């Protein structure tokens, strides 16, 4: 297994490099006059006429050949500089460093109910096929899958902020943001919940949690629905196996049959899906972040892509590619652990 893990880790730079070449290649399909949109975000900024555009193209080397531009970028990356993000108005590495904690915090808090409740509900549904519990959980899952996240998020915001002023958008209220920016509050992780705990500031903790309720619920509900469906299907498949019949015939309780015998095998496909869901939660929740004004990686990446901010897009791709590859590796290893029949080549 160690050999397998090492090999996969060593392949990582190659995978990520390939990804950046593809992305860079796609961007080069746009003309320099299109790619200059990174530096002119709005018609109102086009005060200087065509000359302004030509000047920017020359300044940033946008009409240099592909290999020249790519090599220029790669050289910077190899010296630790991911470039400057026009859309975030800061260096790319700094932008990732700033936005990552927000996304990780949101993903972690959403992952807990997603995984626990999703697997539990799916297990319950699968082991009570045809009964009310099964129907109810399937209904909830279908609703979660078919309702667009944008609609769910906006509904949540309108009800729990617009009508009931309980859960406002953003990461912190004004007073809490001022408290956090004061010198006495030490930033350890960039995650408000953890930093508040480490600073012993319960008021900021409460405010941070209050702002997280809606985005966490939105994310959790959307992703939970997937896990419920996958777990249920896996449970149904597993419960039909002969060894389950054998286990029942031995006289052990149904609870033991499910937990000790069925669940472990049913979790195999669930682990795969969970890995994908978790990595998506970190970098791909643009809509949730936008509606709740939650400035995380997803929104940063979407804005960068929209504004053709290539250094930011490539920097994000580097990060996300690494994250997905590592997540897949963890999933593969978990697979081997759960199912001894699986041999890691």
């Amino acid at each position: 297994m160690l050999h397998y893990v090492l090999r996969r880790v060593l392949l990582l730079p190659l995978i990520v490099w390939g990804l950046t070449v593809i992305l860079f290649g796609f961007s080069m399909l746009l003309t320099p006059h299109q790619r200059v949109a990174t530096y002119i975000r709005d018609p109102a900024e086009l005060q200087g006429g065509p000359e302004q555009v030509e000047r920017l193209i020359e300044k940033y080397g946008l009409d240099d050949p592909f290999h020249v531009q790519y090599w220029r970028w790669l050289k910077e990356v190899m010296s630790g500089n991911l470039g400057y993000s026009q859309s975030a108005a800061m260096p790319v590495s700094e932008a990732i460093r700033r936005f990552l904690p927000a996304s990780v915090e949101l993903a972690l808090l959403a992952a807990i109910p997603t995984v626990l409740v999703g697997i539990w509900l799916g297990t319950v549904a699968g082991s009570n096929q045809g009964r009310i519990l099964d129907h109810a959980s399937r209904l909830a899952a279908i609703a979660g899958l078919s309702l667009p996240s944008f609609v769910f998020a906006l509904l949540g915001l309108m009800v729990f902020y617009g009508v009931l002023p309980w859960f406002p958008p953003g990461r912190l209220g004004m007073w809490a943001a001022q408290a956090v920016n004061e010198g006495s509050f030490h930033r350890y992780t960039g995650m408000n919940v953890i930093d508040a705990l480490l600073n012993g500031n319960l008021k900021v903790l409460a405010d941070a949690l209050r702002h997280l309720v809606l985005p966490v619920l939105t994310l959790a509900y959307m992703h939970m629905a997937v896990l419920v469906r996958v777990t249920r299907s896996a449970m149904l498949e597993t419960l039909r196996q002969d060894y389950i019949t054998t286990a029942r015939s031995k006289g052990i309780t149904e609870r033991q049959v499910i937990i000790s015998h069925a669940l472990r095998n049913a979790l195999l496909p669930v682990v795969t899906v969970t890995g994908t869901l978790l990595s998506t939660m970190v970098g791909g929740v643009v809509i949730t972040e936008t509606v709740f004004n939650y400035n995380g990686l997803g929104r940063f990446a979407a804005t960068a892509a929209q504004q053709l901010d290539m250094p930011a897009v490539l920097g994000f791709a580097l990060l996300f590619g690494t994250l997905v590859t590592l997540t897949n590796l963890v999933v593969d290893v978990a697979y081997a652990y759960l199912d001894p029949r699986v041999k890691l080549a």
Partner: protein
Amino acid sequence: MNRRLWLATVAATVLLVSGAVAADASIKNPDSLVIVRSADFVTLDPAWECDGQSHEIMCNLYDMLVWLDGVSLTEFAPYLSSEVPTMENGLMTLGEDGTLYIRFPIREGVFFHIVGVRQSDGSIVWKDYDSLDSAERALIVPGYGQLTPEDVKYSLLRALITDRAGSVTSDFMKLLTGGTATGMKKLSMKLAGADDFAKVDSEGLKAAFEFLDKAIAVDGDAVVLAFPNPSAASLVLFATYLNNFTVDREWAIAQGGWPGTADTWLAYHDPAVGNTALYQTANGTGPFKLVSWDRTEKTLTLARFEGYWKGPAGVKFLVRKAVPEWTTRKLMLQNGDADIIQADQALYPQLEGMEGVTVQGGLPSIGYQNPWFNWAVDKNSPAIGSGVLDGNGIPYDFFASEDVRKGFCYAFDYSAYIDEVWGGKATQVKGPILKGSLGYSDDQPQYSHDPEKAEGHFRKAFDGKLWDVGFKFTAYTTDRYSEGFKMCLNVLQQNLLAINPKFRMEIQELAWATFLGKISGDFGMPLFTMWKSPQPDPDSMVSHFMSSTGPTPQYLGAAYVALCKTEFDALIAQAAHEFDTAKRAALYDQLQRLAYERALQLFMIQPVDGLVHRDWVHGLYWNPLRGYMMIYWGVTKS
């Protein structure tokens, strides 16, 4: 036991969270004015910015020499200059060679937010002015935080040498050079007699600096600007030039800014946005001072400057946030978490009637909203279809035909557009000169919706062929335009079809990058819209559309530029240099009528804008040129 523990944890969390919920019906954040815009601003550097979002911040961190007085477009108020220069008070004089000298006596007793205080060991430490007691204030080093003419000169020069691509420093440069140069590199080339900047040596670079150094002079307690080849609008053009903010010279240099010397300007020229010393820091004389700029949360916090020369502002804090999602902004306003929000006019119906909210729509703004006729589209552009007049396309010079242009001008239903899209609140424009400006009069002709006249012109165009075969082309718009802006093309499309079903104008919305590629790369747009806000002087307005060197003609083809050269340039120059107001008005009237007679462009409306805010905000004002970029000094919450 586990279940009890779980229930206890949930209950504690709910209590903790709900404890943070404030049931508050009174003014929220009473000490702070919270402004929520849809987009983030770009920089805190006054020499770099020229976007509206950043400019709103600058107006509150920094001061200008003079500025438009409240809601006026013609009257100025003194700020860092103790008087507004005029010919009458002798602060504006004409030299024998025709050079206009404008003298700005610098106001005394004005301090910057951060000042240099002499320490006991002789060193100078920069400190917050408000935090100093009287003893420490006595130790402020002269020139280190108290406004001097040298600070003003340095700031003006710094903006000129920064001269980033797309900045408005070209406006100021043209004033200083009599229109012969638009930027530092062009000035260097001109003085060195070079046709390429690469050929300019160090002496040439120095010469450019020395030219400006002489044109912006310190004379005692004043700064004197010299404008060769001045126009009657020179003061207005300078005073409304956007980068006219003053920083403390010594402080800026201490932050790593340009040292102020001739041999260093090139190193600080045209920097990238994040590469200027003052990108994320500020030290002005304005009513508010910088507290923090959280770029992750897109929140800027400014605090009241207690030492402001006009007296402290009405609110203690100014907080600006960027929230792109409209629903979120609306709910923040509704809940009182935002005092002022940005909203498109088309969204005002969602806000009208909202409790505790004031919606002031229909406020005039200086600007245009009209599609431009491109007189020479790229022949390979897919927008012109077949490229010939066969019913499936148009020739590349379709809009070079005056009959075609007049047909379009008569085809458009101005009243319906104004009523249905703008709620009846916009004003139809008669030409480049806007209502209220010198040279405008109500009896000037304007096009109206007249399908019969439109048909008459279309029948004459292309010897009658146009009417028989029809046309088809694509008009582009972009996702960066407001809905009201985009609707004008929809109205025009329907109007044309109603006149002749063979007149097909398709509308395609492009992503901004694609749109930009088309207008700047291959000019592949027969009819497109752009945005430009002129300065409040008719010279700026007519130059924009009718000068061969103006920004608009550069997009519209050689034939358009040639027309400008032959018919308008001389008249524009004559009007600009006419100091007699009545004569000047007559010349601009003539230009306005020429624009009408030639049907140069499809002038539609002067757009309106608005303010949306909570009722507890008082003291907001609306200047048509500045719009939301206002100085919040006089604003209070009660």
